[in-house]
C-alpha cells in the first residue's frame, strides 16, 4: 500500500473536522475556542473512550466482511454484570474482569452462530443484541444497579477528569482506549492474523483456497469485538457508577458509523483503525460543538446522519477515480 493509501482512512474524518470547526467558528467564534479548550477536549475524550474501544473491535469485524450489532447491548450487559459483582462484594478487579468476560462470552457466541450455524452476521448479531439486552434487564430486575461509592475502588478513578498522578493529563480510560487502538492497528496491519482477516473480507473463497482457517479466524474476530464491547461496558459503568441495562441503546450504530466514516467498506476487505478512531472522535466533537452552539438534540442527530452519508459519499468518489 502506498503511503497515501495508509492515510486514506483518516482523510474523510479530517475533512469532517475541518468542516465542523469552520462551521462552529462561523456561527460563534468564541464557541470554537471553547470547543478546543484543553478541559473540553478532555471531557469529550472521557465521554467517548468507550466508543473508541468498541470501534476497534468493529473495524476488525467489518474488515472481515461481517458486522456486529450486539456491541451496544453487550456493553450495557457488561456494565450491569460489573455493578452486580461489586454490589455482591467482589473486588473492583474481579468485577471489571467479570464485565469483560461477559463481553468475550457474547463475542464467542456470535462467532459460534456465524461460523458453525452459518447464519449471516447481521441476523446472528441482531439476535444476540436482543438476548444481551434482555439478559441485562433480567439480571438487573429492570432497574439500574446501584453501587455504594466506597466499593468502587480504582474503577472510580478510571474516568475522572483530574487523574492522579497529574502527569497522566488524560483519564486512564482514555489511555486504555488509545492502547487498545494501537494494539488493534498493529494486529490488523502487521500480523498474519490481520492479513488473514483482510483476505477473508476481500474474498472468502480465495482465503479458504489459500489455507486460511476461515472459521477459526472469524470466530476470533467476533470474540475480539466482544472483548472490546466488554471493556467499553466496564468503562461505561465506571463513568455512570451504576449498572444500567437500558444504557447504550443505539450505541452499535454509532460504532458502525464511526468505522464507516473512517473509510471502511461494509463489503469487507477495507478499513483502518486510525480512520475509525478519528470517526469516533468526529462524532464526539460534533455533539460537543452542537452543545456549545446551543443546537438542539434533534438537529444534532440529523447532522450526524448527514455526516455519515457525506463521508461515505466522498470516499466512494475518491475510490472510483
Amino acid at each position: 500500500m502506498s503511503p497515501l493509501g495508509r492515510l486514506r482512512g483518516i482523510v474523510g474524518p479530517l475533512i469532517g473536522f475541518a468542516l465542523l470547526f469552520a462551521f462552529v467558528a462561523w456561527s460563534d467564534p468564541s464557541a470554537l475556542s471553547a470547543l478546543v479548550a484543553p478541559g473540553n477536549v478532555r471531557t469529550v475524550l472521557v465521554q467517548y473512550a468507550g466508543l473508541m474501544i468498541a470501534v476497534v473491535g468493529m473495524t476488525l469485524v467489518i474488515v472481515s466482511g461481517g458486522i456486529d450489532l450486539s456491541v451496544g447491548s453487550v456493553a450495557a450487559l457488561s456494565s450491569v454484570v460489573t455493578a452486580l459483582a461489586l454490589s455482591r462484594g467482589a473486588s473492583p478487579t474481579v468485577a471489571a474482569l467479570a464485565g469483560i468476560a461477559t463481553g468475550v462470552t457474547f463475542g464467542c457466541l456470535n462467532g459460534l452462530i456465524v461460523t458453525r450455524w452459518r447464519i449471516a452476521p447481521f441476523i446472528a448479531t441482531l439476535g444476540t443484541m436482543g438476548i444481551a439486552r434482555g439478559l441485562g434487564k433480567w439480571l438487573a430486575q429492570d432497574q439500574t444497579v446501584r453501587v455504594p461509592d466506597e466499593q468502587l475502588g480504582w474503577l472510580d478513578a478510571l474516568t475522572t477528569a483530574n487523574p492522579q498522578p497529574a502527569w497522566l493529563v488524560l483519564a486512564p480510560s482514555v489511555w486504555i482506549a488509545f492502547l487498545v487502538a494501537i494494539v488493534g492497528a498493529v494486529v490488523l496491519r502487521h500480523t498474519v492474523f490481520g492479513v488473514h482477516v483482510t483476505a477473508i473480507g476481500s474474498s472468502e473463497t480465495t482465503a479458504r483456497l489459500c489455507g486460511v482457517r476461515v472459521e477459526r479466524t472469524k470466530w476470533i474476530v467476533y470474540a475480539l469485538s466482544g472483548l472490546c464491547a466488554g471493556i467499553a461496558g466496564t468503562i461505561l459503568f465506571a463513568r455512570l457508577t451504576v449498572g444500567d441495562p437500558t444504557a447504550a441503546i443505539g450505541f452499535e450504530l454509532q460504532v458502525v458509523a464511526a468505522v464507516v466514516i473512517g473509510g471502511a467498506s461494509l463489503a469487507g476487505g477495507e478499513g483502518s483503525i486510525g480512520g475509525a478512531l478519528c470517526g469516533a472522535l468526529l462524532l464526539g466533537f460534533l455533539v460537543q460543538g452542537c452543545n456549545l452552539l446551543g443546537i438542539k438534540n434533534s438537529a444534532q442527530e440529523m447532522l450526524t446522519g448527514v455526516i455519515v452519508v457525506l463521508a461515505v459519499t466522498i470516499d466512494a468518489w475518491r475510490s472510483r477515480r
Partner: protein
Amino acid sequence: MTALSMRGVRKRFAATVALAGVDLEVAAGEIHALLGENGAGKSTLMKILAGAITPDAGVISLNGTTYAPRDPIAGRDAGVAMIYQELTLAPHLSVVENIRLAREKTITRADATAALRALGLTNSVNTLVKNLGPGERQIVEIARAIAADARVIVLDEPTSSIGPMEASRVFDAMRRLRDLGRAVIFISHHLDEVRAVAERFTVLRDGASVGTGRIAETSDDALIALMAGRPLGQLFPVRTWAAGGVVLKIDALAGDSLPRDASLELRRGEIFGIAGLIGAGRTELLRTIFGLDAVRAGHVRVGAWSSSTAQPYLNLRHGVGMLSEDRKNEGLAQRLPIATNLLLSSLNRHARHGVVDDRTLARASEPWLARLGIKAASPLRLVSELSGGNQQKVAIARLLAHDVDVMLLDEPTRGIDVGSKAEIYRLLASLASQGKAIVMVSSVATELLGLCDRIAVMHRGVLGAARAADAWTEESIVHAASLGTAKDVA
C-alpha cells in the same frame, strides 16, 4: 457494405500507450475475428467502440456516418451492442423481461420473442434466466442485441466458460446474426473457434493493427506469429516421463453429488491430465481432494497421510495445493495487492512471531515475479491491475512459494493468451522434471495430449481408467467424454 470503420485510433493513459494506431473494418453480414494477446489493446479498442472511453485520435464511422459516442448509452442508441464474458442478465427476471429491460417502450414482447426465435432458442420466453444454461444465457444476450436493432455486435470471449456443446449453439446464433446482415466482432483466444465461425480477422499487437485477412487463407502458425510478433517455436515442451513414487492416492472417492467414483495414483514427476465435459465433475473432484468439498466415501492419501476429513489448510501443510478455475472470484483476492495474493498461503514463513509488513512481503515476492516473468509496476499494486495471463502466473506462483509437492490445477490456461499459455506449459514441464506431481483438469484436449504423461476422462462423476497420453487421440478423448466408454484406439 462496410458497417463499421475505425481508422488511426489512438489512446494513451498517462504514460502508457494503449492504442498506437488501429485500423479495423467490419462489413455488414460478416463475422470478424479480433485477435491478439492479452494486453494487445483489444479491450481498449472495444471500450472506445462502446463509448465507454474516448479516443485521443482517429476516425470512426458507423454505416457511413461519423460516430463519436459521448457515453455507452449513446453508443447503444447508435446501434453498438457489447456482449461481455460476464453476462449482464438479471437472473430473477424472465427471458423476455431481460430482453426488454430498460427499453420497455421500444421493444415489445413480440419483438423479444421474434428475436429469440430467430436465434433458434425454443424455451418459453417466461423462463427465469437463472434456470437457463450458460450457453442459453449467451443467446439471450444476443437476442437482446437483435431486439434493440444493433448493427454492430461485439462478443468478447463468449465461450470462455461454457462447454463445447453449448458453444456450438452460440456459434449457431452468431451465424444467424450474420445472416440477418449484422456486423459481428468476435474476440476469442481459441483459433479453432475462430476458424469455425469467422470469415475475416484483424490482429492487434502492442496497440496496433498488424494484420488483416481471410481466415481460410491464413494458417494457424501465421496467425500465432502475427499475435506473438515472433514464431512461437514449439507450443508444448518436449518431455520425458521419469515418474517416481506415488505421492497422491485416491480410492473410490465420492463427494456430495459429484464426483461419484474416482480413483487415481499420482506419481512424483508426473503430469496427470483429466479431460471431460463441463459438469462431468472434474472441478468437484479437485475440490474434494483438496478438502474444499466434503468427502462422502472413499479415501485420499497424501504420502503417508490419510486426509479423510481434509481441510485446505491441512492439505497445504502436507504439500498439496490447488489452482482454482475461477481466477476472478476464487483464485485471487482481486482487491488485495499482488504480494499478498502471492504469499497468502505461506505468510507464516515471512513472519516473525506472527508479525509481517508490506515491505517484507514485497521483497519476498519479487523473486517470484522475476522467475515467472510477471510484469508488474510493483508487488504492492492490486492484483486486479494485471492482465489475465499475469494474474494466472501469480496464482501459480503462490503454489510455488508455498513449495507444494502436489499441484491440483483446474483449467490453468483458461482465458489467457497464446504466449502466456506456452510459458505456462514450459513452467509446468520444468516443475514436473523437478519432481512435482501435477493433476491438470482441462477442456482443451490438445493441451492435455501435448503436455500430460497420462490422461483419464471423467464422465458423469466417474473417472475412467488412466492411460498413457500417446494411447489417446483428440477423437478418443471426446468420445470418452461424451459417452463415458473409452473407444479402443489400439
